[in-house]
Structure formats: C-alpha cells, structure tokens
C-alpha cells in the first residue's frame, strides 16, 4: 500500500510544525524520517494516521484521497512512541483488540481471531507470552507486541 502526502501544512497556535510537505512512500518500501527533535516527524505520522488534521494539504492511501476519512476507517497500523499497550489486557487480548473491534458483520469468529493472533505473535516470536500482561515484558518485547497489534489488519505502517 502506498502513501502519498501533498502540500501538508500544520500550525499549533503560532508555531509552524509542517510547511508545505509533499512526500511519496511507494508500496513495500521501508522509509525512515530523520530530523532533529520538534521538526514535525510525529506530527506528519499522526496526520497520515488521521489522529491529527492538517490545516491544508491531502493524504492519499493507496492512491485514494483519505484526507476526510476517519481514523477508524483508515486502517493504518500505528505504533506509538510509548507503545500505548492496554495495561489491563493480556498480550493476546491486546493483539486481538483490533479484530474484536470490527463491526459485527465483518468480525471474524473467535477461533479465526485466535488463529490470526497466534500467527502474529509467532511472527514477532512472542507466541509464548500470550497470557502475560504488558508490564511483565521487557521494553523490546513490548515494542514487538505493539508492532503485532498494529499489523493485525494493517495495510500500511507508521511507527514512531
């Protein structure tokens, strides 16, 4: 899935966070945004995910204009800076959250959810940790869980 942003502008009060940013991320490519603190990397990712609205400019996901699509429908996988894992849920429930949150008619049956979650946990080599809570894992393990949770239906990624 490709991502394209065109002429993104964003101001926080008087502060210009993003000024006329246009970027193209082709399908399958791994892109890193580098820059000093406060230069707008996170703001751009949040705008792509839909957590923040750009003052002007457009976001295209897979060629389609997604600028007015709600975060819920954008299907962007997003790994938060501090992972934002659900503290009170097991690793398994964390990863399953996205599947279970789907509207009833799109929601897979529980056995299918189970299979998919295990698949994702195997992918990040944490299949053994399904019953644990995030607080019981190391920092790196938490990061991998956040990655697995974000990729459960992800078509594209924005990790920060």
């Amino acid at each position: 899935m490709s991502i394209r942003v065109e002429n993104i502008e964003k101001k926080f009060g008087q502060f210009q966070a993003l000024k006329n940013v246009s970027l193209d991320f082709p399908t399958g490519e791994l892109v890193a945004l580098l820059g000093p603190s406060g230069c707008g990397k996170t703001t751009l990712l949040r705008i792509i995910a839909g957590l923040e609205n750009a003052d002007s400019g457009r976001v295209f996901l897979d060629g389609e204009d997604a600028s007015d699509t709600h975060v819920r429908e954008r299907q962007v996988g997003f790994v938060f800076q501090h992972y934002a894992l659900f503290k009170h849920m097991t690793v398994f429930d964390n990863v399953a959250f996205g599947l279970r949150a789907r509207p009833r008619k799109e929601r897979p049956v529980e056995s299918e959810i189970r299979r998919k979650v295990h698949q994702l946990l195997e992918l990040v080599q944490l299949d053994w940790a399904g019953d644990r809570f995030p607080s019981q894992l190391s920092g790196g393990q938490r990061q991998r869980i956040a990655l697995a949770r974000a990729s459960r239906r992800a078509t594209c990624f924005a990790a920060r």
Partner: protein
Amino acid sequence: MSSLAVGAASRSADAAALGLRSPKYFEARTATRDPKWVKWTLVTLGVSYFVLFLLLPLITVFYEALRKGWEVYANAIIEPDAWSAIKLTLIAAAIAVPLNVVFGLAAAWAIAKFEFRGKQFLITLIDLPFSVSPVVAGLIYVLVFGANGWFGSWLRDNDIKVIFAIPGIILATIFVTVPFVARELIPLMQAQGKEEEEAAIVLGASGWRVFTQVTLPNIKWGLIYGVILCNARAMGEFGAVSVVSGHIRGLTNTMPLHIEILYNEYQFAAAFAVASLLALLALVTLVIKKIVEWQQTKSIAASQKSAL
C-alpha cells in the same frame, strides 16, 4: 483533600510493588536511615494522637450505646422514627451517589481529555462544596426553593415540596458530595493521558468500546474509591441537610439529625445506639475501602511478580 489521600495510596501501592521507596527500602540504607529515637518518638506521637482523638471516641460511642443492654439498643433502632431516619439516609445516598458517579465521570473526562475555555473555572467550581460551609449550602437551597425563595410561589402553585421534604435533603446531599468522584478521577485521567484511547481508535474501536474496554478499566480503582468516600459523606452529612430538612420526625429526619434530636431530649442511650449504627456504616465503608486498596496492590504486585 481526599484526592491527595488516594494519590498517596495508589502511589505507595505502585512503589511497594516495585520494592522501591517503601519504608523497608529507606531503612535498609544508611544514607536515609534515621536514628532509632526519632523513629520511636514519631511512632508514639502518631499512635497516641489517633488513639486519643479517633479511637477513644469511637469506642465510647459503642460503649454508651450498649451500656443499658441489648434491649434498649434494639428498641432504639427498631423504633419507627429511627427506622424511617435510617431509610431516608439510605435513599439519599442511593440517589446522590449514582448521580455523582455520572457527573464525576463526565467532568473528569472533560477536564482530562479536552481543552476548553473555563476549564480552570470548572475545576475550582467542583471544589466549592469542600470550601463552602455545608450550612451555607443548605441556606442556598432554602433561598432558591423555600416558600419565600425564587421558585417558592411556582413550587407552591404546582404543589411541589422541596424544602422541608425529601427532595431538599437529596439536593443538599448531592451538593456536599459533588467533589468526591470527580476529584478522584481528574488527576488519574490526566496522568494517563490519551495515548491508549488513541491506540484503540486507530485499531477501529467505536467510542463506546473505547470507553468500556480501555478508559473504564484504567480508572476502575479510582472510581470505586471515589464512590466509597462519596457514600460515606452522603450518609454522614449533617449541616446542609439540617437546614433544609425541617426535622420532621418520621418524615424528613436522616440518621445524623435523628441522633441530634435524641441527644437534645436526653435520650442518651437511644442517641448513642443510632450513632453506633451510623459509625458501623462508616466502619463498613472503611473496611471496603481497605479491601479495595488491598486488591489494587495485589493486582499490581501480581503483574510485577510474574514478570520475573
């Protein structure tokens, strides 16, 4: 004031689970260890102060209540006026507490998760019942709903009784208990921030799902704690309720008011009997509070322990 207490309680729970900053940790290190005499002077001071001013009066209540035997005690409680006072107290608490839960959640949510004008004003306003004397609170309701008050004639024309009736008592109870739930939740929700909610929304969760499965579990203990404190105050409130109640026996007397009447009529045994029941309700509340804290510490400790 109560929010401070809870903050401390949950912080110490976290710290204890981590094994850091607990008294044991401090005492084990020479750098932070105090001399023995400092420790025991402080312990003696603290304990004797609380025994003298808290424990002794509490014991006196139960002692005086039972001095003339169980029969007098039981009669004082099953007597119709006392019974109606108990019922009214429970009704007022049963209405005030759920209302404050809903309001407290809404206010804490608004303050912690949104930016808006007048936010500081709202925070200050929530604290008003802590700073205003309950008597003043009661008088405000008399001024607004009383016979000569703003809505007095309208209420009389429509045959609605607020002052010297149950609605007034419930209103006064709500007024004095407004801060408890909101005050508990605001610092908690502010500390937690919005990240987990954002994560849930990115994952496609609806607003209701985010609230029930992410927000609510995260504030569960704070909420329960607030409800317990709110309930304790609702049952024990005297001043505000006293002004609006009119002290009509068997109709608008709550337990604290009933106790005062009995005491003023020199029925000491009966007064202490009802007082002991009220104290018992408070003690039950404290025990529940302790169990909640204990559960909280246990759940944190358990999740930390199996990590190793």
